[in-house]
């Protein structure tokens, strides 16, 4: 590896070759990195560099020298460095004070303030349990901050587990901080252990679930999931129903993917249930009947994963329309009413029809398909607007006929190309409308 660094080509392809803020600088700049450089980014960035020029402001006018000195002094992490140019007497005083605070009576307030500023402060002289607790409580009362974690780490090192956990138990806020520290540091085992210790089994289960899903290969993912599901079935602690459902669903899906390798080829690693459903739709060949036996049939899979009717229909609609298998669409939206199984199948949709029509239009479905869906709309006014939007002439005609808009129909007919199918359709609609003129409605009115 080390040899590589010598060759010039390394810098040209490495992702972290030097870049410059300023393209005029003589810093060597790989050509492909110009886009990463700050100034090369855009002309806009350049503007930000002129800030200091435009500002025309001196620091003295906004901040006194004393204040600036304080700011810089507060920035330094280590106070223990002796300032230069101090008289011997003062130096002695300083040293004595430092010695005092290190060896003997710990100064609570001073330590807390130092820690708050992020400075190094010795904690070793907090020996007794009471002193330790006081230190922690003082920090918590001041609003916490990272110093709390520093002190907790110190306590963990200098107290046995029973004492340490006792302190955490009495201070829920400190516990939260410590848990967050464990989580961020990536110490998953201790995190889960602590959660369980404090009776937070739900969160522990969640963490274990996330860890299981994050494991690299499919077989270990399955193994971990299985362990988790088994553990919680027997643990006897209440499980949030949602968690239980999702744990089972994830395991089931993992098993399915393992069994059916054909499906896996269509999918990326770690697909979502809806993506798997989409793949199931792709491989499904029989849409006429609902197959609940084959695990990869879309209906069965949706039932197994508790995919809602709307999600199932929407996914299938998209997949079938993308595959241009419009004939299957009718089967997706057919339901046999359960209260009367002998009755003929009915059209049923679980979301707004408008959305279905718009999506089909977007996917360039033929107008016969659009008309089929539009024909299911009850409200003729909405239907007319939608039909016009998706340019489905026949549905426009239907809607106008429904609204008895004779004049509009006539106008529409005139705009349509002569002897086209749509024109005939329009003419028929007009005729039927005219023949109906003397039927029920008008007669009733006269009476």
């Amino acid at each position, binding site marked *: 590896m*080390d040899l590589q*660094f010598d060759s010039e080509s390394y810098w040209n392809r490495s992702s*972290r070759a030097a*870049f410059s*803020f300023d393209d005029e*600088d003589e810093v060597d700049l790989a050509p492909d990195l110009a886009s990463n450089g*700050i100034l090369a980014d*855009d002309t*806009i960035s350049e*503007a930000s*560099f002129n800030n*200091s020029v435009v*500002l025309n402001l001196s620091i003295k*006018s*906004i*901040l*006194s020298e004393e*204040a600036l000195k304080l700011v*810089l002094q507060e*920035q330094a992490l280590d106070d223990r460095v002796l300032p230069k140019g101090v008289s011997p007497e003062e130096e002695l005083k300083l040293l004595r004070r430092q010695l005092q605070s290190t060896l003997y009576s710990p100064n609570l307030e001073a330590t807390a*303030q130092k820690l*708050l500023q*992020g400075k*190094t402060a010795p904690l070793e002289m907090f020996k007794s349990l009471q002193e330790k607790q006081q230190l922690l409580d003082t920090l918590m009362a*001041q*609003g916490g*901050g*990272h110093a709390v974690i*520093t002190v907790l*780490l*110190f306590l963990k090192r200098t107290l046995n587990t029973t004492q340490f956990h006792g302190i955490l138990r009495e201070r829920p*806020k400190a516990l939260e*901080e410590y848990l*967050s520290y464990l*989580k*961020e540091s990536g110490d998953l085992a201790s995190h889960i252990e602590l959660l369980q210790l404090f009776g937070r089994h*739900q969160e522990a289960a*969640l963490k274990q*679930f*996330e860890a299981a899903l*994050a494991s690299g290969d499919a077989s270990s993912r399955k193994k971990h999931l299985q362990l988790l599901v088994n553990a919680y079935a027997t643990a006897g602690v209440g*499980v949030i*129903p*949602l968690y239980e*459902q*999702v744990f089972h669903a994830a395991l089931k899906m993992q098993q399915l993917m393992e069994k059916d390798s054909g499906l896996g080829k269509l999918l990326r690693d770690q697909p*979502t*249930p809806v*993506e798997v459903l989409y793949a199931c739709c792709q491989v499904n060949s029989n849409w006429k009947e609902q197959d609940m036996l084959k695990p990869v049939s879309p209906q069965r899979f949706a039932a197994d994963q*508790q*995919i*809602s009717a*709307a*999600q199932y229909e*929407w*996914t299938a609609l998209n997949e079938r329309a993308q595959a241009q298998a419009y004939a299957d669409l009718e089967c997706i939206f057919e339901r046999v009413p359960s209260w009367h199984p002998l009755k003929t199948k009915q059209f049923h949709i679980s979301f*707004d029809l408008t*959305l279905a029509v718009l999506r089909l239009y*977007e*996917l360039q479905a033929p107008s016969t398909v659009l008309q089929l869906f539009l024909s299911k709309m009850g409200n003729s006014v909405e239907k007319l607007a939608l039909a016009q939007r998706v340019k489905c002439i026949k549905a426009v005609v239907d809607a106008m006929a429904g609204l008895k808009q004779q004049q509009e129909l006539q106008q529409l007919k005139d705009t349509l190309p002569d002897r086209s199918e749509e024109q005939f359709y329009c003419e028929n609609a007009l005729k039927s409308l005219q023949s109906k003129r003397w039927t029920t409605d008008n007669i009733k009115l006269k009476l």
Partner: protein
Amino acid sequence: MDLTLDKKLQGFQLVAQEKLCSILCSIPGKKELILEPDLIKPLEHVVTASWLKLKGIQRIYKHDAAQPLPRSADQVHIYMIRSVLGTFQTLLKQLQPVALEEMPDIAMKMYHIVCVPSCYSYFQTLLEQAGLYGLVQLHHFNWDFIYFDQGVLSLELPNLYECLYLQRNTSPLPSMAQSLRLLQMICGQPSLILSFGNHSSQLMQMLKTLGKLPAPTNPPDYGGWLVIDRDKDYPASLLTPAIYAGLLLEVFEQRSGEILVDNSKNKISSQRVELLQGKKPKTGVNPASKPCSIRLNSTSDEIYGDNRYKRFAQVSSLIHAQVKALGLELQKLNDMQLDEMHDYVARKLPKLTELKSKVLRHLNASEIVIQMMGNFRKLQTLEEDILNNDSRKRLLSEIDELLTTDGQRYNTLRLLCLLHHCVGVAPEELQIFARNYCNLFGHQELGVFQQLSQAGLLPPLVAEKKAPTKLLSNLPLPKFQQTEFQANANRLKLLTSSGDGQDGGSSSRSQASGLQSCPSFVFNGTYIPLVAQLCSILLKTNSAEELSSKLGMIEGLQLHLDSGRTTPKAFASQLKANGVADHDVFPLRLRNLFVFIVGGASYAEIAACDFVAKLTGAQITVASDSLMAGSDLIATAFNH
């Protein structure tokens, strides 16, 4: 020299430079700076490359966690990273070989780590544990407030919301307190500070602990500070704004005060599940179109400056008109005489072409916004109904339908959070939603619901269904429960479109037609952001008595005065008891206010404050740890 407030606020840059300089100058040797990529953009607001060069930095690299950077013997490496435990640990691991080197030269420290904004005190412990103590030196650098735009400051701490509200980890609070302390040094101490929320009052506590300030050089600028927690006003983040700047942030990625306009992808499109996106836009239609950026700064971009807080619909037509006008202007060139043309080309043309490229950028951006927001009116109606608790059952089913047919990873969840915050969602209802959500976006997102419930954005899931609650919810009794949000919103008159409000629905409609008479225009006349309302109360109040009557009912508000911490009510009664009305801080003598939001501000809030400021003749500066849209807020729950 006349020192305006804005100038002073820009002066934070100078202080930051001074701070960075003192770190860099304390390190001898041939210095190389290795930056975490995320830091580059904000750092641009602080220093330039040539400045760094002047301070002895020879080269600048991007830090790559996967590949360690080789160092030759005489070079000093200075790493600059965010103070995030994970990042710090990775870097320590990367530097691990240094500890194994034989005969390390301790006298000369060859490695330095600068943590932004602060070096957590336990980092020293970790350094020691990694065996790197003495070899690697730690520093911290806080750039404090970065001046983005007139009236807009940001600390640029992107992970703060997650840390404070989701993890309940208060580590970043001290550095914020230090920044506020610096603000007090520069702009003086205000006569009162109003804080609302736990973190805010903790911050004030810390500010006090940090010690006394040196005597100020200038007279104070701000009459009052308002420090509030994000969770005290979630709707201002979660509602979709109706103003230009707000919608830009909804659609485009923001990095340190500028947005990235990319024709091929944006914040909304990347939230959708690709398979169900419908017709894919043909790729390669315009491969040459490079993503460009728009700086959200009114001095460098006058078109943004003119339009930032106007309603989007208005802005979009204004930009169209401007493009047309510019086209006409450029056409004039054809009808000119030769000498006229010379003059024109030399003087006016460069300006015009520059303006034109700016306008076109905005035109492009606003067109993408229109395309991405889809059925914006429907969304607004839905949000308005959620705010006013209008037929709750329908709201849930509409959100569910949105999830199915236009599922957006963050935005759909955001609507549910809004619903919970305003109306309350039952655990059973959340369960059904979460099941559908995991089906669409994957089982691994299960943890998100727990995270969001930590922040109170969703109800906590409960282990076993208890029969009694189930029974209760099934009984067809009318419920008169009010959520905390509704109670406070009614007390402070934040809901402007509810039927029983004073102004009624009709006034909000008139605002919709362009007449802006109320800061709620930022949400299309439905809601006034809490900070804006509090600002206008602070500016309009004439006595402590009046303040107490307006704010006395709100739990958690605290007044911080020179004399100590109190509440509006206690302050008023104390003044009354002592009979010294001249100790009253109201009406505020200095009409400028400083607003700080702990956990991210939204542009809707900034615009509403700007409106209040104009109405009352005051100046309001809004600062926060970062600027974010509602989807950014929800997205923080996904970093597990």
